[in-house]
């Protein structure tokens, strides 16, 4: 496996494990096995994060074997992570609107309460992708999908 196959594999594995572990922690925290942890969301959020983690991890193994088509798992995983991120960003945006307008239910709104794992985990994904792009460890000049070569 060349270096361009290693880094996507490592990135998928790390991001996948991160999502999976945060999801599992959120889940057991949500169920009440461990005390609630700030910024770790609820049970349903936990399930969604676990799904994203599994998508990444499913792609990691074929990526390790050099199957470049397995980039699809990283792409879809990132797309799902982006969906969850954008969704939460929209919720925060609309809550902010309610707070600006001083509507009854939003007077005591605190943005801290809206920070869930899907928000900060995606920032980590972006940073990882950004790092790999900058250091040219994925894609390179031919782009991220040098498939069929």
């Amino acid at each position, binding site marked *: 496996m060349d270096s361009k196959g290693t880094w996507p594999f490592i990135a998928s594995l790390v991001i996948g494990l991160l999502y999976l572990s945060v999801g599992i922690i959120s889940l057991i925290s949500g169920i009440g096995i461990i005390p609630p942890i700030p910024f770790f969301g*609820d049970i349903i959020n936990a399930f969604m994060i676990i799904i994203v983690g599994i998508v990444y991890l*499913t792609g990691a193994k074929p990526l390790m074997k050099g199957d470049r*088509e397995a980039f*699809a798992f990283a*792409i879809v995983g990132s797309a799902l992570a982006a969906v969850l991120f954008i*969704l939460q960003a*929209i919720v925060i945006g609309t809550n902010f609107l309610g707070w600006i307008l001083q509507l009854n239910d939003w007077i005591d709104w605190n943005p801290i309460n809206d920070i869930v794992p899907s928000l900060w985990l995606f920032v980590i994904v972006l940073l990882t992708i950004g790092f790999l792009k900058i250091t040219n460890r994925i894609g390179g000049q031919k782009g991220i999908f040098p*498939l069929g*070569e």
Partner: protein
Amino acid sequence: MNPPKETSESVFLDDEDDDDFEDPQIILADKRYEIIGEILCEVYEPGKEKWVLSDLMDRVFLHKYLGLPIFFLVMWAMFHFTFNASLVFMAMTDSVLTWIATYTIQIPIEWVASLVTDGIIGGVGFILIFLPPILFMFLAISFLEDSGYLARAAFVMDRIMMKMGLHGRSFIPLLLGFGCSVPAIMAARTVDGESNRMTTIMVSPLMSCAARLPVYVLIAGVFFPEIAGTMVFLMYLLGIIMAVIMALIFKKTLFKEESAPLLMELPMYQMPTLHGSFRHARDRGMLFLRKAGTYLLAGAMIIWFISNIGPSGFGVPVEDSFVAIFGNLMAPIFTFHGFPWQIVTALIFGLLAKEVVIESLGVIFAVQGDAAIAATLSGLLDPVQALALMVFVLLYTPCIAAVGTIKKETQSWKWAGVSVAYQMLLAYIISLAIVIVGGFFFG
């Protein structure tokens, strides 16, 4: 130019038993693509790239094990967006209507003031509060449709339905049911085989249509505020599950026929345009407004009238009106559910159209504003009963138009009657089970 797209079919053919290859549809599709392949060999110079992004993404979205969880994630995201993003706009609409009501209540002629404030603003106006989530839901559906994912969702569900001996194509009309049951029932024409078509017609009303959304949004917002978006998602999920279960029952009893595999050309994935999605949402919003401005308005006025007139004349308290008499007469049916007469009346009026459930509550409670109705509701029901009410609304006959369409499509009043009867029975039994089981655990 890209090679012909047969990924989806290949994916599914790989998973099926050898017997399925005997199916004429598959043989025809194979032959078709064989001919296309031969033509392409002569006219198409393949490039270096083996796959396009769309094919790659199908490898994940149509994955044997990941496809379904991803579908659930997308669905959850859609309803989370529908509910949570629209909350502030609902509150804004509510504030405007409450502000208008402070003026209309001052109209010198008392009955006109009551008609405008309690009947029109309390009824139709209350429905309008739920316009934002409806717009947001159609925005999300349109986004998914334009992206090409919705067609994949049908394929993902097809695998499960096929395993249960059902016709995969049935899920496409069922997906239309998220918007409205009427086009969903009509779309069953595309399903092959009379038995498959009949099964699809019979279960289409179980898919949660947009008209039910205001009921979920109201009840989930009042009784489950922390997980309201998830509750709405669960209602839609339950609708799908019940449709699949009922389809299975119908296939094993009334409409026995071999199922055929789903063959469907999948569109390429593409980035939806904001313009297209907004236009779709706007069109649906206009449709809703037109409905609100016509027969929902007429309905609100009729409900207002019968909730103000009783045996002792006009202008009586709602408890002494014909609505209350009717509601109290029917309420024993729901004794075990613990639904009060106001809820029972709203459910019966809801047979006309599901929006009328909310409209009726607005008029019968005769209070303005989301918060006031929420307070009244929470005094009448406990969370378990509220959940049972949501499930009842999900499962019972969607509207009179859907019944008419079933009659038209099946050319039989008998099947329209069977549809109404089984849905009522199903809604009653499942909601009662929720009350009993929920009462056991939380009572």
